[in-house]
């Protein structure tokens, strides 16, 4: 009895130990999968967002973000390789998670730069034309279109719909800006320089002076000595 029971007990201990080892390994595998599942969303966000906007970005920005995504893919590939021998990959995947979060921030930043560049000229135009009372309705319409569009501080589009909405908004801004296309170029140049406080009397050409007189804007301007405080 004692010999058989003792042999069974030893076998039981070994089985229990093996089961605990397997149990621990299974838990490690589950932890890894949970980390992967947490990681999947941000990675899809990043790759999708980059895929959507990459053609709109400057080449240097594209290369930089591409390398960042390659780095991220490399971390995950190494983790997949290590997983065969070390089933708990949580630490490696935390590193991947931090990387993807940083990349998403960089994509958003790149997008914001692009978006600002797309609307900056129209904001400048608005800064000029809003000073012209007889163009007030057109200025208000342009202002509305600029404000209605996604503010440039927003994140990069994660889907086609938001990108289309951005492009539609940009289209509306262009349409509203066309209301000012009747302005002669010298007048527009003069008004731009005035808005930038860089206009001189030399810019006040006869053509510009005539246009301002015709539209009864002469009383809207002061003449001062340059450089005086």
């Amino acid at each position, binding site marked *: *009895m*004692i*010999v*058989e*029971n*003792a*042999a*069974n*007990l*030893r076998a*039981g*201990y*070994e*089985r*229990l*130990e093996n*089961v*605990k080892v*397997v*149990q621990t*390994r*299974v838990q490690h*595998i*589950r932890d*890894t*999968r949970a980390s*992967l*599942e947490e*990681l*999947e969303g941000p*990675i*899809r966000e*990043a*790759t*999708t967002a*980059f*895929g959507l906007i*990459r053609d709109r970005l400057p080449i240097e920005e*594209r*290369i930089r*973000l*591409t*390398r960042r*995504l*390659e780095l*991220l*893919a490399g971390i*995950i*590939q190494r*983790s*997949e390789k290590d*997983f065969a021998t070390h*089933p708990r990959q949580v630490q490696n995947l935390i590193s991947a998670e931090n990387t993807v979060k940083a990349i998403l921030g960089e994509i958003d930043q790149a997008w914001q730069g692009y978006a600002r560049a797309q609307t900056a000229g129209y904001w400048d135009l608005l800064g000029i034309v809003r000073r012209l009372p007889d163009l007030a309705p057109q200025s208000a319409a342009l202002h509305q279109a600029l404000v209605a569009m996604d503010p440039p501080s927003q994140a990069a589009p994660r889907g086609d719909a938001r990108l289309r909405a951005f492009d539609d908004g940009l289209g509306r801004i262009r349409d509203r800006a066309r209301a000012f296309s009747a302005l002669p170029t010298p007048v527009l140049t003069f008004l731009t320089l005035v808005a930038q406080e860089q206009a001189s009397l030399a810019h006040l050409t006869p053509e510009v002076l005539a246009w301002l007189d015709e539209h009864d804007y002469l009383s809207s301007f002061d003449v001062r000595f340059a450089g005086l405080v």
Partner: protein
Amino acid sequence: MAPAALGALERLLPLLIENRVPGRSSLPTPTEWRQELQAIKRRSPTAWQEVTDRLWQRVEPAALHKTLRASLNLARGGPRSPEQSGVFLDAATALDELEAFQADGWQLTGFDAKTDGWTVTWAQLADAWRILARFVPSGNAEAAGRLLEERGRLDRVMGTSDEETVVGAIGETLQTMSRYQKPNQVAGAGRLEIKQIAEARRRLRAVCSAAGRGDVVLSATLAVSKPTIDEVSATVAELTTFADFVSNELDAVEAELARIGVDDASERTEAELTGTAYRRILGAFPSAAPALTGEGRS
């Protein structure tokens, strides 16, 4: 009865009588001791038992054991040969004769044998009597019953295994427990030795065998075994404790295994699911990263 044993017993009984008659310095003739014995019996029907009890109280167990071995097994032709000492008792024969003596109700009917030529000193007779008096049954049944139980326990614990296998199994089990850092209260079993268990089995077998041969043989066996009985009990107790511990621990381990219920299949399934998750995530990259890789390197 064998003549030698009869002669010895015949000469022992005068000592009993002598104890009742202080100052007696020579052997009585058979007729004299028979007369004296009859006188004792007439004076007191319980004389035999009284004298036996008195002798019993005077007996030191350790000295008895020593003298038993020296006297009962005194070899013919040895330093104190029967020719010289006048007493020779073959142990096995003496025990058989005592058994028969007991079966006759301790009657002296068999003591008519010729005893001519026997020369015994009183001291030798006293020694021999003390030894034989030790065989008067007293509480043997209880002791034997306890030892029979011990034998039963030992047989149950050991099953059909020999001592070497049992000691090996104990050692391996204790090592396994130590390797897996299992607390135990049976480390003492690791000190059990093969010869110790073998001796316990041998002793218990002897007692069981003697128990089947009658009270006198059983008494003699118990007397001989007495100093080691406690060791035998301790050995059996150690083995039983270990066996019980192993049995309980085995139940606990099996229950734990049943409760956990994890198998290798679940590990494979989990690993496959995780491998799929890796491939799914890496698959998200080609739409952006690989296509751009070339661009990035350009």
